[in-house]
């Protein structure tokens, strides 16, 4: 009899619909994690593999991440080969068919993004290029909305009972973005057409959003450290174009950017390219707000 009770309880537990549990979401970056939380609310649990203050190209494929992925219902990643140096190793180690490419829980977020800088003929003589496009798209708020809609649809597919909540959360998130962007209008106006130099190609979409004019890069080619001759040319170019601000991510060495900025009488602005990239930036809207306000301030 006891055995029957036990079997009955086990069967009931197995039969519990997925929607009664929280969806387990793993994202490759903190930005996707933040948006997933905004959409999923308390119907999901989420964790990010990359920290906001590390270079998402170079994440150690630690076995502890594989354990998280092994239990995940959804793995959402930036795509466009941003995570190609570590994601295949982790997916292989996780043995979770749900999140393998083609699985219901595998979400390549770049699918819903109008991608910039696609260059199918690129080769590695051009540096660490992404032939399928620039992957730093989350830095445009319109893409933040697209990501939220994608998450809404995916979460609703896997947890139909949560549809109303996901719809409402997504609408609220989009409204917050619109409102934040509206509030940033004066800063955006101050940034528009202003020349700046960036360390890496991470700011391409942010450029589209703000209208800033990236006139050069500290890296001569993506992923390639600068040579003295490149920096000398960059300094001359900055003088010609009037660029005074060098923007860079927190995980790069600032010796070279400082050198360049010193030589043009400008300054280096460390901007987080991801949520939690600097202390106090804990969600996606704070990231956009922080970057716009600090850039406008630096360009003043």
């Amino acid at each position: 009899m006891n055995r029957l009770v036990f079997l009955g309880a086990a069967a009931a537990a197995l039969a519990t619909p997925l929607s009664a549990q929280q969806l387990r979401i793993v994202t490759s970056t903190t930005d996707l994690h933040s948006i997933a939380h905004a959409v999923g609310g308390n119907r999901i649990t989420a964790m990010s593999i990359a920290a906001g203050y590390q270079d998402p190209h170079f994440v150690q494929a630690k076995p502890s991440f594989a354990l998280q992925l092994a239990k995940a219902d959804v793995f959402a990643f930036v795509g466009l080969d941003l995570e190609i140096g570590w994601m295949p190793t982790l997916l292989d180690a996780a043995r979770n068919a749900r999140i393998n490419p083609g699985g219901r829980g595998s979400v390549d977020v770049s699918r819903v993004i109008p991608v910039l800088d696609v260059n199918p003929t690129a080769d590695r003589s051009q540096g660490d290029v992404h032939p399928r496009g620039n992957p730093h798209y989350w830095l445009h708020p319109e893409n933040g909305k697209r990501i939220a809609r994608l998450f809404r649809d995916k979460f609703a597919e896997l947890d139909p009972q949560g549809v109303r909540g996901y719809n409402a959360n997504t609408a609220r998130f989009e409204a917050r973005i619109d409102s934040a962007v509206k509030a940033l209008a004066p800063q955006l106006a101050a940034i528009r057409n202003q020349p700046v130099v960036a360390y890496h190609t991470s700011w391409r979409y942010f450029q589209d959003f703000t209208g800033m004019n990236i006139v050069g890069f500290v890296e001569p080619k993506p992923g390639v450290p600068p040579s003295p001759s490149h920096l000398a040319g960059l300094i001359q170019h900055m003088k010609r174009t009037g660029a005074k601000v060098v923007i860079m991510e927190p995980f790069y060495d600032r010796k070279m950017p400082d050198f360049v900025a010193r030589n043009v009488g400008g300054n280096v602005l460390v901007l987080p390219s991801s949520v939690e990239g600097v202390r106090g930036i804990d969600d996606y809207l704070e990231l956009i707000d922080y970057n716009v306000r600090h850039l406008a301030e630096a360009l003043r």
Partner: protein
Amino acid sequence: MRILVVVAILFGVPIAAQQPDTTARRDSVARADSIARADSLRIVRELERIRGEARPVQPVGAMTPTRAVQPGAPSLNPNISVIGDFIVDASPDGSTLESARRFDVREIELALGASVDPYFRGDFILGLSDEEGIAIEEAYLTTLALPWQLQARVGRFHLPVGKQNTTHRAELHTIEYPHVIQRFLGAEGGKGTGLALSKIFAPFRFYQELQLTAIERFPEEHGHAHEEEELGEEHFEGAAAEPPNKTLAGLGYTARFRNYWDLDEATNVELSFSGGTGRVAEPFGCETFSGIEPCPGPSGETAVLARRSLVAADLTLRWRPLREGLYRSFIVQAEVMRQHKDQPALPSGVPASAVYLGPTEETNGLYVFSRWQLSRRVFVGTRYDWLEATGDAERDLTAISGYLQMFPSEFSKIVLGYEHLRPDVGERVNRLLAQMTIAIGPHRPHPF
């Protein structure tokens, strides 16, 4: 697909004409054509607008901005990579490489990999070298959809015995495998052909993995140079009465138990234990006045199956602060291995003067390796090797080596190495080596 449809409509492919033709249908087709043409014109205008959009000032440096609406269609072709491994031996007393060359293309690896279907992934790595011609380095199918965090692999693969043996030689932090791995598992690492099964679990809230393999045979020991010379004509391989794989007990088996802890976000430790066993044919012979001669047993056999076993433990500590991870990291790694060889009973019916000629000793060996990152592209490393003396060896083998690694990019590596080797027989050797490794093809995942 959409473009094809648009083109078809624009060029007036009469798809609808194949249907029964009525006035109403003709009207509806005309309306559809009109809508489709309008849609196609809108798409064409949109593409023209996108292509013709004015660009900002041409930036100097890292990118050439272009614009597209969606990434390209994924390809169903397998990933194809080629890894070239080039060696220069500048040692003062001549080449110390197995090939005896000063300049050597040690190996070219051609790697192909792709998902076969939703259930399997296929990986094929061919090794090309002057010595071996074309060899199947690895070729295996990996399951993608087994339940309970299980994964199976069928084919030929690097054996999960010890830590560094699971890494391809070209991807090592050093130019060659540690001496203990070269001796016990082979200069190119130990591989096996068979079946592997592994499972990950975390009952104690940290990562654990059990890896089991059953293989055709356990890798042969890599002989000492002096053994070949000293045994001379006495050395013969012999043939056993039956092949080792006739029974399941004759196959090779390995097991590895991995334990992994994150100490903090920058530091982690891995401690693993592994072992392997298998039976190999070892010769026996009879002592005569002229030396040792083959003396076949009742079935004509001149060898007997002897068991060779290996146990190992490895410890790896990694430190890489996330914020400065592009520029600073440290790794220290140690492995200890112990090899045991049984002395089997000789078959009944062989002459009384018959003696077992295979090795019987127990041998220990270890290495300790560390590597420090100096800058984004430059690392320095050092390794200490020790191998216990066996057989006719005069002393233990010891070696100390230092390495300077430079990574022009993720896809190329230059290593300069110096090794002071005190072999188990003969004079001390100073080795000066340089290695260049390049990879072309898709981005290779970084080994962990």
